[in-house]
């Protein structure tokens, strides 16, 4: 931080320090064949602690956008900063470590490993960060407690309901205390009551100061977010 203050003008400092995601002229082309441009010249910034909903019709490029933010893919052109780090120029090793420490993912289809218990699934997020199994287990139990699943810690995903599975996934996303939680339609596979419970948890996380970016088709979710970005045909329209 001292470095930033020294090199940047005072006016920029606040924005720089609190910027969690920043995109400058980002575009993305699926190589195909045939090639398909999914994003055009995206410029945006997300500030620490924001709760942002990503809206837009199917195929408008929401998931593509989130993959770039989550460093799961590389942009075709443009710059992406995560916590002020220019992520596009980093090598594979550093991008992996940024993903591990700064970003938590929640997917529509949960992506839990069927052969691991809820606890082990949460612990997996720490496997590539800390060598202490004991530490991993303690942190995972703490995260499961936050989503109210302490009692189901040793259940396999197949023994959990859809809502419970998504709560395990949320516990896995927050266990490393990341800067940013990215959710791609987290309630897409859930009925409205179960979805509400998952959204309550996201609200709590937002209140505790975490930055949330949530792709959604549901008004229910969009209403809870403080800000929304609207995509259309690969362009950010609002």
């Amino acid at each position, binding site marked *: 931080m001292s470095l930033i203050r020294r090199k940047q003008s005072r006016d920029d400092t606040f924005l720089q320090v609190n910027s969690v995601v920043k995109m400058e002229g980002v575009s993305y082309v699926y190589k195909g064949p045939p090639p398909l441009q999914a994003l055009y010249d995206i410029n945006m910034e997300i500030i620490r602690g924001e709760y942002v909903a990503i809206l837009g019709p199917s195929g408008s490029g929401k998931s593509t956008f989130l993959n770039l933010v989550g460093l799961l893919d590389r942009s075709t052109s443009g710059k992406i900063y995560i916590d002020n780090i220019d992520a596009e120029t980093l090598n*594979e090793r*550093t991008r*992996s470590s940024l993903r591990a420490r700064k970003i938590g993912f929640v997917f529509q289809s949960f992506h839990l490993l069927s052969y691991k218990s809820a606890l082990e699934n949460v612990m997996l997020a720490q496997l590539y960060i800390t060598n202490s199994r004991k530490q991993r287990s303690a942190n995972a139990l703490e995260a499961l407690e936050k989503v109210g699943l302490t009692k189901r810690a040793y259940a396999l995903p197949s023994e959990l309901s859809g809502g419970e599975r998504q709560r395990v996934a949320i516990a896995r996303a927050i266990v490393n205390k990341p800067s940013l939680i990215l959710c791609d339609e987290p309630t897409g596979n859930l009925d409205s009551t179960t979805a509400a419970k998952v959204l309550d948890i996201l609200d709590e996380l937002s209140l505790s100061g975490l930055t949330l970016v949530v792709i959604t088709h549901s008004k229910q979710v969009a209403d809870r977010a403080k800000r929304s970005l609207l995509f259309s045909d690969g362009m950010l329209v609002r």
Partner: protein
Amino acid sequence: MSSARSNRKNYLPENSRLSVIDLVFESVAAILQRPLRSIMTMVGTFLGIGTFVVLIGMSQTVSAQISKQFNILDATQVNVTEVAPSTNKGIYGFTVDSDKDIDKLNGVLSCGIWWQVQETAPVTALPGVDGSSAIYNLYAIDGSLLKASGAVISQGTGFNQFDISTHQHVIILSSAVATNLGINDLVNAPAVFIGGLPFTVIGILSSDQRLPALEVSMMIPTTTAMDTFGLPSSQYPPQMLIHTKLGAADLIARQTPVALSPTHPGYFTAISALSSNSLKNQVVGNLNTLFYILAAIAIIIGAVGIANTTLVAILERTSEIGLRRALGARKYHIASHFLLESILMGLLAGLMGSSCGILIVILVGLAKNWTVVIDPYVTLIAPFAGALIGMLAGLYPSIKASSIEPAEALRR
């Protein structure tokens, strides 16, 4: 821009890591927690290695068995022939004492001299028995030959010391010749006439283990043969047959020429039944080639099957790989994890395959009453061959699966 670059160092988090213990733990857990999957993946290696061990074990056991059966006959027999023309004053290269010289050698059970008598006149039985006449092979044999050659005398006796030393006109007929001549028993002391000379039939030979030619012939004492038909011809030189203890034949064959003639051992060649030895080697060799080809086919089919199942098993877990990458795993973590999994499964399958293979060979051996022979190296190497196959099969898919972008992997 320059600021972002210079800042980077300060802000970059520690690298992702994966300790060796965690790596092993994750791999073992993935194998054990999905037992059915793991077994399905290992079946190919298990069958491949198992078949390989069975085929190698069977080939070695069967070869040993064949050798053993050949050797029982082979390694107990030495044939000695004269090479150089006789220069000593004796009647032929072999002397009267030759038998005794050889009998002294350790490992000799018995020995005897024989040759084929060249000129044989028509043979008739005593008038009144049968009027037919024919020519049969006639052999001169000494008193101990029939013992050495393993002859079976069904009626009467062989030649005794008296017959030999007094040049008796006695004869032994093989049962085939006796039947042809109409001689069925020795009750009335039958005689045969060779070129008009009478010989008393004193024995009938029904079979001969080491000199099968005797089974269709007539035999007279060596002394009588020389009296009546002269010295052995160069076409049919005298030979000595030595019956030895099991396995002693090679050694005896080497010692014989010296024992017979310490000054001129080169006069004799002694051969331990090598002809059938080369036959044995040929049979065993053909058999081994067959087994080795089958074993190679088994391992190739196994390897292809394993490569295929491993490929499918890893590609099937592409979304797991995407997830692990999303959680911070580096390509190299993924590749080593999945590679270790296939190596461990290959090792395990190899161990089980070779154990079952050995068990099968032992059971077959017990059932057939064979001595089981398995090269210990095969049993030691087989599990590692499994691990190697696992590694080779896992190498390509694990590297491939780890090199796609996580976003792409997660979509699968």
